[in-house]
């Protein structure tokens, strides 16, 4: 029994790290720009496919793909923002929030179809030689790939945290989150802050996509399920709390893994039910302040 529970916990943490990574990007863009990017999962999908290409076409190790995918997705995110979202600035506050949601919804419609043309509907997985390998501690199997994925996620989240708290640009991001009008008056280039934040969010999603591609599979329609996962985590954590998002991701991963033992196929729905309950009774999230 101990073995089963411990093994489940380890598996849950591994999956949770991916949840956390994708939710952090979504949380960042929502917190700073008040844009609910329902196309966030699409960036994850694109990241996964680019890593798949780099791996199968030129044989690049998926972990070495990280910087490439990060940069490509950063550019893609920046372009999307520049072309589509920056035009929304002309609307007043409420319309801006709603229209940005709708634009993201439009992107969500387009991306999977393009992916279907480029990569077909087949399930793709990134399988380097070591992908199935694992080692044992106290009889618990720990896979190399999930462990490395967890490390990558932790390092990236920690890096993001330092970036937001220690650098001057991070300060401007936090300032814009608090009050963009005041930030603008203080001489912060709000437009550029938005652009970079959105691009960083996309890059984070893309990197999460590599991990998903190694541990699960990549398909054109994977975007929406992952966006939903990220939304659950986001609401669990409290919207806009970056550090909280990562921990909430871990919690969701563990809860899902453990509950799978007891309620089997209803696990997927469980996460969503938790989500609705939180939304109704504690809308500021577990880690949010009133």
């Amino acid at each position, binding site marked *: 029994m101990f073995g089963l529970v411990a093994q489940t916990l380890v598996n849950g943490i591994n999956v949770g790290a991916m949840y956390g990574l994708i939710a952090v990007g979504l949380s960042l863009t929502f917190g700073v720009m008040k844009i609910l990017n329902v196309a966030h999962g699409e960036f994850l999908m694109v990241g996964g496919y680019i890593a798949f290409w780099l791996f199968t076409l030129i044989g690049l190790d998926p972990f070495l793909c990280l910087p490439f995918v990060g940069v490509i997705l950063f550019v893609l995110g920046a372009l999307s923002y520049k072309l589509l979202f920056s035009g929304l600035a002309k609307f007043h506050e409420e319309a801006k929030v709603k229209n940005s949601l709708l634009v993201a919804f439009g992107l969500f419609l*387009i991306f999977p179809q393009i992916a279907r043309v480029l990569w077909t509907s087949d399930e793709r997985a990134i399988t380097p030689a070591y992908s199935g390998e694992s080692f044992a501690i106290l009889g618990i199997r720990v896979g190399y790939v999930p462990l490395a994925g967890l490390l990558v996620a932790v390092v990236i989240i920690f890096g993001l945290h330092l970036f937001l708290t220690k650098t001057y640009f991070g300060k401007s991001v936090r300032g814009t989150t608090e009050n963009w009008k005041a930030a603008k008056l203080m001489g912060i280039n709000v437009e550029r802050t938005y652009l970079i934040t959105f691009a960083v969010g996309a890059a984070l999603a893309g990197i999460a996509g590599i991990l998903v591609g190694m541990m699960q599979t990549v398909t054109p329609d994977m975007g929406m399920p992952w966006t939903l996962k990220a939304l659950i985590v986001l609401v669990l954590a409290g919207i806009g709390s970056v550090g909280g998002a990562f921990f909430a991701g871990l919690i969701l991963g563990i809860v899902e893994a453990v509950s799978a033992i007891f309620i089997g196929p209803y696990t997927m729905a469980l996460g969503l039910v938790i989500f609705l309950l939180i939304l109704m009774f504690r809308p500021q999230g577990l880690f949010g302040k009133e």
Partner: protein
Amino acid sequence: MAVDWKKILPIVGILIFLIFVPLVTSRTDVLTWFFLTLLYIALSQSWNIIGGFAGQVNLGHAAFFGAGALTARYIWLHFGLPFPLALLGGAVAATLFAMLIGLPAFRLKGIYFVIGTLVLAEILRLVFYTILPEADVMPMKLLGTYSLNPRYYLSLLFAVLSVAAVYWVSRSRLGMGLLAVREDEEAAEASGVNTQKHKLVAFLISTFMAGLTGGIYAYYGAAFRPGGLFEPVWTFDAVIIVFVGGVGTIIGPIIGSVFFVLLKQFLSLYLPGGMHVAVFGVLFIIVVLFLPEGLVELITKVRHRLLGESSQIVS
């Protein structure tokens, strides 16, 4: 009240044409296109009330469509009651469900309402794929006498009713209140509009209509998987049609539905399946950014320009 024949005649003409379609042709593909267009008109008009007039972006419309369809199907086929009763039962089930969800859901403002409804439909989809994994097939006896014509007329009836309902809402005091809520909720509240009540009533009307539309689908589908009734595509198609056609207008969803079905059929001849969704995605973004009233606005603009120029030539 003076009757404006210029406006009424074309409507009557279109209706007579639609009534005669099944008598003129027996091609099932043509009938199916018409059926789908009418079904989409009913579905998108139902979304239009909550999303277009009240301005509450409901991304979980499939939940109510599915609840109506599944209830109607069970009452009709599995409990063996007459179909009209089943249709009503489905709509009532969807509305009851909306009431259950609506009261807490409207405590969630703006973005939370969007996420909440999106997730709700997803829960139902997962649950029904799990508890009812097998396809629901019509009994052989019914399949033997299956005819598209009654399905077609039913969809025509409900498409007309849904347009009438939206017309009524747009002219009523309720509609005025909803517009006020959409434009500025706080200002509406301050000027004495009970915003919670308005939103809830709009939600109930909208979901009742979605439930009815689901009932039509339950009557039409020879076989489907219960979970599939809750697929987000039912929501998304409605949202796309309403926005591309013209959100918050009466004629917009009609134009949108015709355009959507036609383009879907046309593109499927030349492009790999599903590409019409991408085309509509692009259109959708263009509409949101540049044409807030969709194709309706485009048509009026073009007409004004043409008429304006021709009148200049005449003068």
